[in-house]
């Protein structure tokens, strides 16, 4: 069932996994004078595959940062894997937006994925056999085993997303926090990455990913949360994405949903609408450099 903000909160019994991986109550957060999230409640059951959907500046990235412990909430309580944010950090893998990474940085694909092992290896020690095996396995899972020696800047946008997902996999987390993991990648890459995330969720890990792509959210995610400074609705991804009223509320009228011939829906998503007033998130277009 779809649960809207006005709806009943008591009936939010999670379908999968009794223990919530993430539990937010009355969480507000922002930057300077900007309030990006306004008193948010959210429960993410363990094993969920959750899409966080909303326009630019809606607070999607802020939501991930608050959960990851990168940004302190101004109000409210947050539980991540049963503790305050940041306490269970080694069980959390956070992948930033592609725009947040310096692609000229002199590291190879293998070195980037090994970074996922650094907290486990610990200080004063080098990577061991288990670490190398985890890196190899993660690279094979995302189909990038052959690129291990290449510099990350020499990869295409889709390959870069694959490598960053491999870094997350290599850290063997219980919770994935992924900021736009399939934005700006080709259809094959999108399907491959979603296959990997689906498998992780099936194995009992929790996956939370922001996305602009309503079609992908509808087809590949179980659950969704519509966000625009507050939670507009949570529920099965398919139902939310086909609900014109909720989408209009989330996007403020900047989205059009048309029924298509196959009985589904054709979604015209205004992903490039810039809401300057809510400029808490920066959004860049693919610059075509690679």
């Amino acid at each position, binding site marked *: 069932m779809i649960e809207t903000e006005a709806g009943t909160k008591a009936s939010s019994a999670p379908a999968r996994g009794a223990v919530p991986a993430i539990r937010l109550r009355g969480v507000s957060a922002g930057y300077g004078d900007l309030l990006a999230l306004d008193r948010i409640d959210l429960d993410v059951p363990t094993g969920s595959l959750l899409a966080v959907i909303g326009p630019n500046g809606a607070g999607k990235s802020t939501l991930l940062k608050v959960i990851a*412990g990168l940004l302190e909430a101004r109000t409210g309580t947050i539980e991540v894997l049963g503790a305050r944010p940041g306490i269970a*950090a080694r069980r959390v893998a956070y992948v*930033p937006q592609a725009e947040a990474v310096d692609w000229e940085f*002199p*590291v190879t694909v293998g070195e980037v994925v*090994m970074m996922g092992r650094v907290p486990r290896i610990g200080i004063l020690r080098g990577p061991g056999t288990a670490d190398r095996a985890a890196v190899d396995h993660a690279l094979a899972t995302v189909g990038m085993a052959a690129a291990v020696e290449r510099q990350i800047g*020499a990869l295409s946008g889709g390959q870069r997303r694959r490598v960053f997902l491999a870094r997350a996999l290599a850290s063997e987390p219980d919770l994935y926090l992924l900021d736009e993991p399939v934005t700006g990648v080709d259809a094959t890459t999108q399907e491959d990455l979603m296959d990997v995330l689906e498998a992780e969720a099936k194995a009992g890990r929790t996956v939370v990913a922001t996305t602009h792509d309503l079609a992908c959210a509808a087809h590949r995610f179980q659950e969704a949360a519509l966000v625009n400074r507050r939670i507009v609705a949570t529920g099965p991804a398919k139902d939310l994405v086909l609900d014109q009223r909720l989408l209009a509320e989330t996007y403020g009228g900047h989205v059009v949903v048309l029924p298509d011939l196959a009985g589904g829906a054709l979604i015209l998503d205004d992903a490039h609408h810039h809401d300057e007033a809510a400029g808490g998130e920066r959004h860049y277009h693919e610059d075509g450099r690679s």
Partner: protein
Amino acid sequence: MSLVDFVTGPMAYGFMQRGLVAAILVGVVCAVMGTFVVLKGLAFIGDAVSHAAFPGLVIAYLLGIPLYVGAAAAAVLTALAIGAVSRRGGLRFDTAVGVLFAGTFALGILLFSTIRNYVADLFSYLLGNVLGIATEDLVQIALLGVIVLAVLYVLRKELLYSTFDPAGAAASGLPVNRLEYLLLGLLGVTIVVSIQAVGIIMVVAMLVTPAATAQLLVVRFGRMLSLAVWVAVVSAVSGLYLSYYLNVASGASIVLVETALFGAALVFSPRRGLLARRHHEPTGAAVAPGA
């Protein structure tokens, strides 16, 4: 003059021997520290910290305590203050650094102007005098340099991760803030170690130029680090010989050799050089195979 004479001639003098050792030591420490400085974009901070060492030197002189101590205190304090300013915000970061940079240096000049007699020591810190380095200075440089290198070596994988992706590293539990303060503190120490050799004004070149040259040529962190060290060592040795035979300033000679090597890399780098770009427009750098 034979080649042997050319090489061994200057080394007949103790000040040249000490100068060579000091230049190499400083070059190596700066190149390693500089690799992090370049990748983290701390060049401007490095310049600010080195200028902030000046009031520390003058105050130490006025108080009659060792100049090194004053410089170190001022440099490390400024580095940490910059770290704190960068967290608070309200101003653009480079603006805040610029204000601090000019203010601290002005304080140094003001205090300097109160000293009536000519102070050669203080001047040598402004412009550097690698040939005036005494044996006990050399011991100090070596000791502090080894400490900086050891800390960077021990924490290399944590520093690399938090430099490349601070958000990802912090979310996975690395103490990214503390690592950043540590790096700034080490930067302060590195600068203090270096200013006696190359001077406050040129130390930023020793930090940035070898690492920047290396980044143009290689694509792996480890190789960038070792190439930066080679650039620094070659520049230190050849710069010192140049200064001896041409009878020109030693610190400036070293920095100019580094600058020339950077210029050569900028033009001839097979991946990112200006010549390579002409052939591979528009995406030459991005599609070239990794080394």
